């Protein structure tokens, strides 16, 4: 039969409407119509018509079938008409055969094509789709364990990763409207132009869901700016890595944790977004421990360190809004952070007393006698935030108080003071020294509702000589 002229029907036995039109198809064949029938599930259906076996859905995918039955009228290789479901008048007009389906209702809606079953579009795109993906394909040995193979190729952070098959990567790319070929960032240390596709591959490996991808992309863009300096952050001997703080509606939409154990394990979005960023730096940028990563200790947050701010329970405006992003806009703030130092104050009921505790604990970031060279994130818990809310303290009021408390006499801070050789240069002895540079202390609200604790995430070399926090809006 000439495939470029005639009629093609797509059916599946599971569909009641397809079974309904089974005699109609036989009638068309008897009338001498050049009709091909493609069946999506049972090749013996429709009976006696020698249906084409399309159980692999290749023909249905190519024809873009969404509903069964679909009747295509093809002329000179082009579809001139596509009918979905059963409609006697339309079928008679399209085929030129009168008296179709005696005894059948005038019309009956069809069923969904198997090409649209959950997960099927990505599978079919991987199998039959055009070459939208550009990444090199690696064929593993038949006896090679794919998880072991990925370890051996150095693709993982030490934990298993999800195998990045074409199907999974195509599904991941559904998470954004941006083109897979778009260069998202130039990733250090190898300064590689990283396409969105490469980010998607690493996001698959990290365990991300597609809806996390825009956050991963934004985090990578922020990390690869000159201000953030992820290259230096990677190379340093200090125990630091990128910390991703998420604000705005995207956090709740993708199910991020900003409450109990927000800085800990157990939430897929928190865990995999931070991990995806690290895997991109590792695999695309080539940054690995023992290579450009020269950390003396490292810290567990270098596997992943990502959380959302608890905005609803916060007495303050969101961190991203304070940093210039419009209210209601999703954003990511990157911070060059080391580990988490929790702090306790179960006695303070006044903001002045609690601020005193916070300042005393912040003073020791890196070293009590070193200042201005390390930023910090102060993660205030709901129970501590309550003290400030009830006293009507804004974030800037708290910051002002902390700035005052963190101004120490230079004579106590310089080298040799207190019998400790480490400290600020002798020339700074005369004047008070602030602990943090302007803008060097970020304050966010997160954590569980029980616990009069807060947490400090110490920084790395701060400001222009090291890393500055970077906030970017999330593009979908």
């Amino acid at each position, binding site marked *: 039969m000439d495939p470029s002229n005639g009629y093609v029907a797509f059916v599946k036995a599971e569909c009641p409407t397809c079974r309904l039109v089974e005699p109609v198809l036989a009638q068309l064949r008897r009338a001498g119509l050049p009709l091909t029938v493609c069946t999506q599930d049972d090749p013996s259906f429709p009976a006696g018509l020698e249906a084409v076996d399309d159980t692999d859905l290749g023909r249905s995918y190519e024809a873009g079938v969404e509903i069964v039955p679909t009747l295509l009228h093809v002329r000179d290789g082009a579809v001139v008409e596509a009918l979905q479901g059963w409609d006697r008048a339309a079928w008679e007009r399209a085929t030129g055969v009168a008296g179709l389906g005696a005894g059948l209702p005038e019309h009956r809606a069809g069923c969904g094509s198997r090409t649209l079953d959950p997960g099927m579009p990505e599978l079919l795109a991987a199998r039959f789709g055009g070459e939208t993906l550009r990444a090199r394909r*690696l064929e593993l040995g038949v006896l090679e364990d794919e998880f072991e193979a990925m370890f051996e190729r150095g693709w993982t952070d030490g934990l298993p990763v999800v195998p*990045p098959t074409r199907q999974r990567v195509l599904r991941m790319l559904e998470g954004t409207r941006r083109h897979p070929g778009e260069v998202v960032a130039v990733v250090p240390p190898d300064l590689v132009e990283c396409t969105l596709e490469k980010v998607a591959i690493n996001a698959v490996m990290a365990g991300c869901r597609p809806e996390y991808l825009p956050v991963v992309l934004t985090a990578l863009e922020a990390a690869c700016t000159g201000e953030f300096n992820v290259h230096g952050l990677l190379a340093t001997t200090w125990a630091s890595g990128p910390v991703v703080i998420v604000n705005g509606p995207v956090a709740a939409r993708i199910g991020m944790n900003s409450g109990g154990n927000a800085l800990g394990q157990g939430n897929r979005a928190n865990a995999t977004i931070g991990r995806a960023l690290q895997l991109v730096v590792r*695999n*695309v940028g*080539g940054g690995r421990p023992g290579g450009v990563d020269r950390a003396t200790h490292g810290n567990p947050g270098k596997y992943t360190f990502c959380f959302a701010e608890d905005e609803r329970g916060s007495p303050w405006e969101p961190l991203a809004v304070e940093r210039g992003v419009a209210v209601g806009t999703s954003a990511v703030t990157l911070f060059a952070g080391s580990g988490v130092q929790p702090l306790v104050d179960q006695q303070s009921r006044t903001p002045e007393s609690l601020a005193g505790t916070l300042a005393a604990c912040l003073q020791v970031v890196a070293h009590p006698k070193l200042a201005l060279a390390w930023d910090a994130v102060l993660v205030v818990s709901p129970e501590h935030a309550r003290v400030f809310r009830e006293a009507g303290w804004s974030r800037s009021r708290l910051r002002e108080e902390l700035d005052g408390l963190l101004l120490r006499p230079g004579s106590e801070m310089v080298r040799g003071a207190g019998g400790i050789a480490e400290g600020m240069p002798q020339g700074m002895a005369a004047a008070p020294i602030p602990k943090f540079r302007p803008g060097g202390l970020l304050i966010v609200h997160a954590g569980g509702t029980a616990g009069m604790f807060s947490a400090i995430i110490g920084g790395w070399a701060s400001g222009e000589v090291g890393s500055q926090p970077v906030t970017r809006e999330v593009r979908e």
Partner: protein
Amino acid sequence: MTRPELLDPTSERQPAARRRVSRPASLEGLTVGLLDISKPRGDVFLDRLEELLSARGVEVLRFRKPTFTKPAPIDLRREISVRCDAVVEALAD
């Protein structure tokens, strides 16, 4: 059986096929594994090889597959790769 196919997550600056470790120019200071595949009299050959290597000051570690009919277990292959610089696999009968 179809071969699993993965997309390369890297910058693709390294060749896709991993290179074999090159042969050592000398055995001096190296550890040599002797893998007995469990065929009869393979041990006779390997015992003699161990004598000869040890006499030359080469450190020798002995390994044995549970059966010659199957590939070496993955743990054994891993152990040899981690502990030895070179390996001699005996094929005797």
